[in-house]
């Protein structure tokens, strides 16, 4: 079982350093996207910006991989590609790959 070391437990990561806090990532399929803007509207972390109605992820985007955008997209044009990963005090422990519910 993975654990936190003493050093990790007491180190506060720098939140805008990608080496210390890795945020989630999603990818857009612009052939499917109808530019409805729902994803931009509902993202709790304001991760998206619309350039001429075309949504894309801001840099940096503080995505916590809630996947609400993936679920709400009426065209299924958004895919989650990378989960979040934190280090130090907030180190993510025991996380596997992204998977849909398994029957």
């Amino acid at each position, binding site marked *: 079982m993975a654990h936190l070391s003493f050093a990790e437990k007491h180190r506060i990561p720098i939140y805008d350093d990608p080496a210390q806090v890795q945020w989630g990532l999603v990818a857009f399929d612009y052939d499917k996207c109808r530019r409805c803007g729902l994803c931009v*509207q*509902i993202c*709790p972390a304001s991760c998206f910006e619309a350039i001429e109605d075309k949504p894309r992820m801001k840099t940096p985007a*503080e995505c916590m991989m809630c*996947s609400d955008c*993936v679920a709400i997209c009426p065209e299924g044009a958004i895919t989650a590609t990378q989960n979040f990963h934190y280090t130090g*005090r*907030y180190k993510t422990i025991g996380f596997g790959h992204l998977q849909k519910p398994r029957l």
Partner: protein
Amino acid sequence: MGRQGQIAEELHKEWTETEEVILKRRSVRFYKKAQVPEYMIRRILEAGRFAPSAGNGQPWKFVVLREPDIINGITETTVTICRLFKSLIEYRIPGKRWRLPIAKLNIRIKPAELHPVPFSACTLIADRALGLFHGAPTVILIFKDVRGISNPDLDCGIAGQNMVLAAHSMGLGTCWVSFSKLAFQYTGKWKKRLGIQYPYKFVTSLSIGWPVGDPDGVIARPTHAVDWYEDGAKTVVH
């Protein structure tokens, strides 16, 4: 085939209705203005009332808010507090790097409240880029009875999840909103306005309304390492 065998066979083919609600439920942060009928909220409260709790203590108090003035007022108070916090600890904006040691000290004092996610959310709420109740016409505040058995926070969470799942099974949208705690933790204004006093303490709140679009759906989540003890051996399954 016995009844148990039949059930097992069915389960291999499809999710139960309850599982579907659980798996498809997503947080809703964009609501229509139309109010939710009163009887639906009453039904949701019934789902909360029948939640299990330690020693059947039912250590909760629900407050239903359907007055925009109160919902907006709590939002404004929370935005004000977030603004104050942002001005103290937000080090990620150009020219404000000197706030980093102050931020780190605060994170050390309140590590759960200032995890990277709420740290960012605090800034977004301060900038009004993230709404608090997201325009929901109904809000349910959940208070715990601090004299509750064992762990009243947990019992409030169980009751809350009952209500949330009931709401989604009816086609409504919900969102757990705990940032509203700031309005009760750092000011007395809303406790006074709503008549909240000992032994009640704010735990969390739920925004409820008709969603814009169709936000519920199946998504991918990371698997988690689960330790499994059986037949004298331990395996780790995901």
